[in-house]
């Protein structure tokens, strides 16, 4: 166990904070969530860079990221050594993993070949940064895999206990209630890409066997970006190379001394070297004008290559099947698909917080370029009428944070009846469960009463539903609740125009 340094304490506190905020990103009895894991994205300069390049505008939501970037300019890449929860996880795991030799392939300009194409893709209007952002990688692995796994395991245990104890289990109910209310996800949900998301994190951990902080120094696009900013740091480590007589820094340093000269952009300011230097030589000094011996930017061809590959990434992976397109339902308040692809970080928070688990990461339904973006699957969960949580936790406002009365009018899609399945049409039996559940005060699903001959020729009164488009916000509760087995008799279909419902219709005037 390494000695507890200030940096170490800070790391652990931020990891705890991250986990704490992650657990808080859930409905816990209040309409508003005051603290959520989105803080880690709002303070994330990679999210900021990708947002600014893609949206070609700025949002005040990302002000903390500006501050982090500014501090990095002053202090260097401290984020990675003091804050980043993924880095902390790697540090915790690192000691237990025996190292072989570094992977040659990752050396050189590999990390720039990752960062710049991602940023260039943003410039060409698709924000892919989140796919490789370390905080997003961690959040997704937790959201889609580890947290549901925890929830499901404990819940299954609780159910199993009922099998053994029956109603006697009630004595344990208060304890379980606390765990359920404050720690666990409320529902057991399984996500597509759960395996992928977990694998991503595990591969990053696996890379630790080649080199300490392998991901951080050779791959991580956020780290690379911070490294570029950190080159301007006013504080420089001296000496800037290994001392010939000692060379201990080569072993101590987790990121920056894989060569004889300190790699300024990789130094994560963990201070291990200065704390452990037997000769008290290593130190971080205020040296604003100290010459940096290495070229600031990597080769020019990386820029040109990245610009091109970003452009190609954006253009080549946009194919969507019409079927998928018709069911591409975005969270409430997202009006424009293009804008959404520019601003969504794919962090998975909306999907984590969604009350009824209506949102799932897109696999290929939004095209390969839309992987991990949120899509509503109404048959699995609907958008709760009065809930605004996804907009509240979205770090970039890709899903706008709307007051409830506005959110209710935002159109996700439109309900469409399938008369081949809908019971009153297809089976001549009454049903109307969709109308019953429709939350619109004036009912977007209505019915007409018709006398018809049933199968035996007897005249029966049938209530046949129809949809009033002017009132339907596509919340999907009708599709969710439709009692027809398998495919529902009513489904939400994406609409080209996601214009919100008009107040007049909504408030009462008959359409």
């Amino acid at each position, binding site marked *: 166990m390494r000695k507890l340094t200030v940096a170490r304490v800070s790391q652990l506190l931020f990891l705890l904070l991250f986990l704490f905020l992650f657990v808080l990103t859930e409905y816990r009895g209040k309409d508003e969530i005051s603290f959520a894991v989105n803080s880690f994205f709002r303070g994330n300069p990679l999210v900021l860079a990708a947002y600014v390049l893609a949206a070609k505008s700025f949002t005040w939501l990302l002000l903390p990221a500006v501050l982090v970037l500014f501090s990095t300019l002053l202090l260097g890449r401290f984020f990675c050594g003091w804050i980043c929860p993924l880095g902390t996880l790697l540090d915790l795991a690192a000691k237990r993993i025996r190292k072989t030799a570094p992977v040659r392939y990752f050396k050189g300009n590999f990390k720039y070949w990752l960062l710049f194409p991602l940023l260039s893709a943003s410039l060409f209007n698709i924000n892919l940064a989140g796919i490789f952002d370390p905080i997003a990688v961690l959040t997704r692995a937790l959201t889609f895999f580890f947290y549901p796994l925890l929830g499901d395991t404990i819940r299954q245990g609780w*159910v199993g206990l009922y099998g053994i104890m029956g*109603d006697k289990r009630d004595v344990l109910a208060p304890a379980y209630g606390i765990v359920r209310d404050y720690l666990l996800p409320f529902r057991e949900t399984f996500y597509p890409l759960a395996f992928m998301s977990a694998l991503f994190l595990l591969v990053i951990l696996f890379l630790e066997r080649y080199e300490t902080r392998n991901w951080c120094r050779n791959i991580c696009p956020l780290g690379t970006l911070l490294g570029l900013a950190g080159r301007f740091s006013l504080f420089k480590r001296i000496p800037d190379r290994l001392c010939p007589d000692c060379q201990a820094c080569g072993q101590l340093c987790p990121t920056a001394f894989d060569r004889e000269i300190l790699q300024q952009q990789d130094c994560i300011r963990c201070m291990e070297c200065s704390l452990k230097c037997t000769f008290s030589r290593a130190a971080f000094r205020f040296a604003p004008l100290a010459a940096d011996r290495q070229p600031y930017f990597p080769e020019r061809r990386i820029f040109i290559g990245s610009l091109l590959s970003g452009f190609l990434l954006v253009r080549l992976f946009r194919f969507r099947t019409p079927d998928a397109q018709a069911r591409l339902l975005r969270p409430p308040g997202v009006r424009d698909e293009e804008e959404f692809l520019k601003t969504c970080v794919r962090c998975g928070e909306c999907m984590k917080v969604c009350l009824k688990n209506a949102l799932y990461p897109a696999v290929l339904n939004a095209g390969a370029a839309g992987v991990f973006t949120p899509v509503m699957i109404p048959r699995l969960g609907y958008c709760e009428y009065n*809930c605004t949580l996804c907009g509240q936790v979205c770090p970039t406002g890709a899903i706008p944070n709307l007051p409830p009365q506005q959110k209710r009018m935002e159109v996700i899609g439109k309900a469409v009846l399938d008369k081949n399945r809908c019971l009153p049409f297809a089976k001549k039996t009454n049903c109307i469960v969709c109308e019953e559940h429709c939350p619109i005060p004036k009912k977007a699903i209505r019915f007409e009463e018709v006398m018809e001959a049933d199968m035996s020729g007897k005249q029966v009164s049938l209530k046949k539903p129809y949809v009033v488009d002017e009132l339907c916000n596509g919340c999907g509760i009708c599709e969710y609740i439709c009692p027809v087995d398998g495919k529902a008799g009513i489904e939400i279909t994406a609409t080209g125009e996601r214009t919100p419902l008009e107040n007049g219709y909504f408030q009462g005037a008959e359409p």
Partner: protein
Amino acid sequence: MNRRTFLKFLGMTSLFYHRMLRDAAATERPLLAAAEGKDYSAITRNAIRAIGGMGKFVRKGDLVVVKPNIGWDRTPEQAANTHPLVVRAIVEECLRAGAGKVKVFDRTCNDERRCYVNSGISAALKELKNVEVKYIENERFRKVAINGTVLKEWELYGEALTANVFINVPIAKHHGLTGVSLGIKNIMGVMGGNRGKIHRNIGPALADINGALKSRLVVIDATRILTGHGPQGGDLRDVRIVNKVIASADIVAADAYATTLFGLKPADISTTVAAYRKGLGEMDLGKVRILKV
């Protein structure tokens, strides 16, 4: 006629005049109380007291289930859920009558957490001792033989089945399919499975379920009623303040009486008619002893 011949006569009539005897034995004309007033806790208590008090239904140490309608993510004034004050008054009456434990739950339609919070029911019962406001847990549903007219078996909620007393506390509101939603319909909150399926034959199906799980006491919250766009509502213009609470041990009578508040006839409500036919109670209000308090 001396006493002996009278008794003989009476014995003979029992052979031929079942009905007469049943009617004679029925001081048992079903009893129903409709309390009116603006203090919802008080009128709830008054209604229960008028039909004999909670002690008539709950014995010392009983495990009681109070089943309000908490189905929707709506506020009390929107009249989609049972009023929290009515629920609380009933729970308190149960405790006063000596109930060992009172459980309150509903299988909600919207997210249960939001329903329990925004209906005001969680908060209303928060600090009461020996009261559990709990979410439905799927493992507690049990397949029960119904052997009814349309349902052979269905999953019902274990905690409702094992309770000594089941008290049904609906809110009176409009419903697209059944016209009104009252006590007979409120039983859907303890049904498991794909309960939307019973909508194709809802009257008889609900009568079957009510036959299998009897409500010892029905208290209908008509403090405000939802007159349109039910059962969710959401528009305050559909809400009418009636300031009434109806209590009866006869679920059909209670429903029948509440139906009249909507200006409808009990005979037009399929659930009421089906339950009456099944012998679950009296739908002819002329044969019900109605106490207005």
